């Protein structure tokens, strides 16, 4: 080898040698003689002695935009344009300087070699795996032409549908809905698979969904974590629960599954699935019978308490014990302990309301909390979620329809954020068409007029929507499916065009939480890798192509800057709520909303202005006016299948990263030892899990963390594995959701299956 490694190393490691070498390089004429190619000649060589010591980091403010209680405020560290690591922001007492294991893997998400890098078209047909790389211009022109062709053929754009949900909760990402607003009246998959029955329940009871600050829980005197597993899904809240517990506060977990949180509790109560509503009513009855209800609060703040008390008299406590599977002594102990404590609080998980009787369960628990006067109280409350800090301008969303647009005449606005339609100040003659997101597959197949183009953003339809076999049928029946995503998944597999989307580190945005009360700026920390673009940049590009093909066919601006668009989301209300004068102050760190205890003034936004045990609105929507017990869906197969969230993923996000795959490499089904004996199953046996919907093959893990009669599979998606719980979960509705979100939720935990050893 005729070269000097030592010489090159010296140039690399010594500033003076480097300067001398670079001066020589300039003199050699080498640079001008390069033929040029993908790498360009660097004519601007700096021959000053360079600093070769350790470089300092540039820091940026970011926020985790995932669908998570904790919505972490993040500080990111960048060197030479490369994201090096992130940490939780110290300024937020909630994030408290630490992210979860998923958040800590963000660098690996950004720099995963498996990211979608370029726009691509599946030229071999959906599911073929034959992909062609195309330019952004080709991609957007193809889509724009299809949209304009639909408009020409149908006289409207109802053939173009959008399904978008919580893959990125950044406020500017509502620009995806804005993009669809800007082309005309279209079809939207609306509603929410997440929390609709509970939202309706809390709105019937209190006129709003408005939770106490989780940071108050450290001062609660009795905490019931009901169907929620924050040790896995909201680790930052656990510190407040631990703090309370250290002071001797009783922390009770009520859950059919012995969860990570149950293992940390003072007491774990394994309630029978779907009987929680009756348990809450039984507890309320015990409290009232003992005269421990808060008569003063009830008299001043509630409507229909007398009727509710009368209804409680009909509750048979022996029946409560039988249905819930709990002894009366235990139920009494918990009920009276809760009533004695001041303040006492319940945190209601979202899984509870994913039953056919889910809304009624939430109403019953609300009632239990109200009976004890813990609504409107610091460190009390019936906690579920809130949107009180989400009062942004939704500038990216608010795009007018092109003049002369024709749409649907009998639609109403849908979506829990109340801006599903958006853009129109006055009630227009036409509206968008809304299809139920929780029945996406059948809606896409059956809609009239027919859906021909589907745009998917911030969502992995196949991982999150129900009835996979029907979904394949629905996707293959569409003329064109466009998916904007960061990674290949089963939804991309069934797409015609895939568009690469930026991570939060590659764009500006702003984020708040549906749980805590912090506001975080998300700054662009690095350049977008490869050819990825933010959702709103994609919208601008679509506008450019639509308007080039047909002038004024799209009202979306054709050029935009994500920083400027983030700034446009702020208003006086946000500034006042968070005590800042400008959004720019957020570059110093996240800020918290001024303290406010929900309903502390006794003002509820129900029709009566009071807490409504008796709700006429509930009655109007076909429910009982009182929070009465509603039995859960009857079994249609051998075992109940429950499909909760795993701590290693957030829905279908994160599990595909190598760190997660290392510690959680394959899916499994958890089976109770008694059921395993009956089925003659052993650990690691491969079983077929099947029902009327479909079947899956997974390995068995035997554990008494799940009760007999119930099996559990996490809902996450595994990269490169044929595993999708929606093969088995059908789209049967929960009882509530239509009032506030426009469509009922899904009773996904009321799925039943059988097992067979393979």
């Amino acid at each position, binding site marked *: *080898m005729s*070269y000097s490694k030592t010489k090159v190393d010296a140039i690399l490691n010594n500033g003076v040698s480097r300067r001398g070498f*670079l001066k020589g390089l300039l003199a050699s004429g*080498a640079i001008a003689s*390069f033929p040029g190619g993908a790498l*360009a000649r*660097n004519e601007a060589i700096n021959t000053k002695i360079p600093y070769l010591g350790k470089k300092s980091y540039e820091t940026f403010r970011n926020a985790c935009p995932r669908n998570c209680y904790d919505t972490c405020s993040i500080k990111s560290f960048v060197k030479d344009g490369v994201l090096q690591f992130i940490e939780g922001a110290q300024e937020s007492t909630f994030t408290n300087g630490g992210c979860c294991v998923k958040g800590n893997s963000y660098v690996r998400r950004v720099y995963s070699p*498996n990211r979608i890098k370029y726009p691509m078209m599946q030229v071999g047909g959906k599911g073929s795996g034959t*992909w062609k790389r195309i330019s952004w211009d080709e991609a957007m022109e193809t889509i724009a032409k299809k949209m304009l062709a639909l408009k020409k053929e149908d006289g409207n754009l109802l053939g173009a549908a959008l399904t978008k949900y919580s893959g990125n909760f950044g406020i500017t990402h509502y620009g995806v809905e804005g993009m669809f607003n800007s082309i005309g009246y279209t079809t939207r998959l609306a509603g929410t698979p997440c929390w609709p029955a509970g939202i309706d329940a809390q709105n019937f009871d209190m006129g709003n969904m408005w939770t106490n600050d989780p940071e108050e829980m450290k001062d609660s005197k009795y905490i019931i974590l009901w169907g929620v597993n924050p040790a896995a899904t909201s680790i930052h809240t656990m510190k407040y629960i631990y703090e309370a517990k250290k002071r001797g506060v009783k922390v009770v977990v009520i859950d059919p599954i012995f969860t990570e949180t149950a293992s940390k509790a003072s007491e774990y109560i394994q309630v029978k699935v779907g009987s929680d509503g009756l348990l809450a009513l039984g507890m309320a009855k015990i409290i009232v019978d003992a005269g421990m209800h808060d008569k003063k609060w009830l008299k001043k703040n509630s409507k229909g308490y007398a009727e509710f008390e009368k209804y409680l008299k009909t509750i048979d406590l022996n029946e409560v014990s039988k249905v819930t599977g709990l002894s009366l002594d235990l139920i009494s102990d918990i009920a009276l302990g809760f009533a004695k404590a001041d303040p006492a609080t319940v945190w209601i998980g979202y899984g509870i309301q994913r039953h056919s009787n889910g809304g009624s369960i939430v109403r019953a628990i609300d009632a239990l909390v109200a009976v004890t006067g813990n609504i409107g109280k610091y460190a009390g409350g019936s906690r579920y979620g809130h949107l009180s800090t989400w009062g942004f301008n939704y500038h990216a969303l608010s795009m007018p329809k092109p003049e002369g647009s024709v749409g649907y005449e009998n639609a109403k606005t849908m979506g829990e954020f109340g801006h599903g339609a958006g853009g129109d100040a006055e009630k227009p003659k036409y509206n968008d068409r809304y299809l139920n997101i929780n029945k996406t597959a059948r809606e896409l197949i059956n809609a009239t007029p027919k859906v021909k183009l589907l745009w998917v953003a911030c969502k992995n339809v196949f991982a999150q929507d129900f009835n996979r076999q029907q979904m394949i049928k629905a996707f293959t029946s569409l003329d064109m499916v466009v998916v904007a995503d960061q990674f290949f998944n089963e939804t991309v597999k069934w797409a015609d065009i895939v568009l690469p989307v930026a991570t939060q580190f590659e764009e500006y945005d702003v984020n708040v939480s549906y749980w805590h009360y912090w506001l975080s700026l998300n700054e662009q920390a690095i350049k977008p890798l490869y050819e990825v673009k933010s959702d709103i940049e994609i919208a601008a590009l679509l506008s450019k192509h639509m308007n080039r093909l047909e002038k004024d066919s799209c009202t979306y601006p054709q050029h935009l800057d994500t920083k400027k668009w983030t700034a446009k989301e702020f208003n006086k209300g946000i500034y006042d709520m968070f005590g800042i004068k400008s959004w720019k102050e957020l570059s110093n760190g996240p800020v918290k909303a001024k303290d406010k205890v929900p309903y502390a003034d006794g003002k509820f936004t129900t029709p009566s202005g009071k807490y409504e045990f008796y709700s006429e609105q509930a009655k109007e929507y076909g429910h009982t006016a009182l929070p009465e017990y509603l039995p859960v869906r009857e079994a249609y197969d051998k075992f109940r299948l429950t499909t909760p969230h795993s701590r290693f993923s957030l829905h279908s996000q994160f599990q595909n990263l190598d760190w997660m795959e290392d510690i959680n490499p394959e899916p499994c089904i958890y089976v109770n030892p008694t059921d395993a004996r009956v089925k003659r199953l052993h650990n690691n046996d491969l079983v077929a899990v099947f029902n009327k919907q479909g079947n899956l093959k997974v390995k068995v893990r035997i554990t008494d963390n799940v009760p007999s009669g119930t099996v559990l599979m996490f809902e996450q998606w595994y990269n490169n594995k044929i595993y999708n719980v929606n093969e088995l979960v059908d789209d049967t509705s929960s009882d509530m959701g239509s009032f506030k979100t426009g469509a009922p939720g899904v009773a996904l935990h009321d799925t039943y299956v059988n097992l067979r050893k393979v």
Partner: protein
Amino acid sequence: MTKAMSSNSTQRLEKIEVLKNIFTSSNDKELWRGFKELKNDLEISQDSLEADFNRYFIGPDSPIASPYASIYLDKQEVVMSKSTEKVRELYDLMGLKNPLKDTQPEDFIGLELDAYYQLLFLEKEKNINYLHDFRLYFLFEHIQKWIFDFVEKIQSNEKESSAAINLIAQELKSCFENEIEHEGGL
């Protein structure tokens, strides 16, 4: 192109240029043009070649063999890591710059082939040897350390393997075996 070791500088340059053109292609036409220059008898259509190429190197599904040195050299299987930083520094010293800085990692095989081609061109076509040490340093201290693992990753893929991609891998292997031998490294 023959598989015999070539010592002719024009042939060496041509071989690297063809591979560079293949790996820096951004559409089916550029890829096809590059592939045709390999002068092979394989029967494959332009569309099939691109589909195979994307399956192996581009996506949208996880590529079979990610074309970035850091994946093979660094502990962590990510792009933009230590190896990328080192290659970036080498380009800086060679007087080359990546117009896609911070968006396309410098250790992307297309860019590395381009850098190596330009360095060899300088010596063989322009008789400028100022960067000779840097070219060999790049070859022996960097390319040699990962390129054969990359080739191995391609060739060991048995599931739906592609004769066209295996040919490209073989050419890549022989190209750098030739370079290393020529420079006295074997």
